[in-house]
């Protein structure tokens, strides 16, 4: 099995983002959540609470929106496509770093999954209004850093960083 990996840095944030990813400093605090397979009732909790935590820090509204959308899409991905997993949001004074780890079954080809319109969603996911193949592109659009590692038959790891300024 070949592990596939995807990296994205927003150009305007690249120097500080790379420095952050290399150093991975200790966060001020973290928030953690577990996600159940196909639990569409509780999904969305993490994105709402992370958004609220950042709002309390005084983070700008347009940034809050980007964080909420990116985290929500990733939450939906874990809910819809995996056997469940967990989320850890590391909160810093200048950015938020959110890590998603699921329990498989992994992706065959991440680059294919990044293409708008590509989806492996089944009927149930589509009935929920998802599965149009727009989730990962939406995460990329809103994140300053996006890193994904996956392998067919194994778990998927996704981390994203969004700076407040």
């Amino acid at each position: 099995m070949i592990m596939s990996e995807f990296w994205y840095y927003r150009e305007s944030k690249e120097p500080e983002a790379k420095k952050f990813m290399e150093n991975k400093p200790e966060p001020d605090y973290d928030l953690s959540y577990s996600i159940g397979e196909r639990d569409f009732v509780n999904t969305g909790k993490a994105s709402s609470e992370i958004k609220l935590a950042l709002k309390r820090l005084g983070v700008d509204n347009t940034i809050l929106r980007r964080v909420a959308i990116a985290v929500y899409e990733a939450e939906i991905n874990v809910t819809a496509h995996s056997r469940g997993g967990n989320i850890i949001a590391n909160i810093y004074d200048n950015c938020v770093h959110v890590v998603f780890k699921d329990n498989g079954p992994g992706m065959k080809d991440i680059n294919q999954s990044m293409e708008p319109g590509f989806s492996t969603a089944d009927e149930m996911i589509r009935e929920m209004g998802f599965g149009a193949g727009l989730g990962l592109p939406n995460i990329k659009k809103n994140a300053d850093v996006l890193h994904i590692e996956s392998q067919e038959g194994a778990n998927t790891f996704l981390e994203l960083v969004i700076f407040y300024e």
Partner: protein
Amino acid sequence: MKLKKLLENIEATVLSQKDNIDSIEIKGGYVSDLLSDVLGNAKKGDVWMTIMKHLNVIAVASHTEVSAIIFAKNIVPEKTIIEKAEENGICLISSSLSTFELAGILFALLNSN
């Protein structure tokens, strides 16, 4: 434009946020039943017109900060979803019109100002 003005021009029932309805401002509209499409493209202050009524619409409306969701074709979501909307400050409206008719009326009103 006030949401109220749109409501005067469509056959509509307000399902949540009845007390705040007079103060809601709208700037535009978006029509879609694909939630990721809405997440990627709806703007703050839009009216979101849809036939999708699953619980996930509340999170999507909250994250995109749309001003209201209008369910077309007399669609009314389950009571628990209306309660969740109330809790999250999301205004839900149900109309007998189709999304095509709703969007047409909203477009005309916004462009007549």
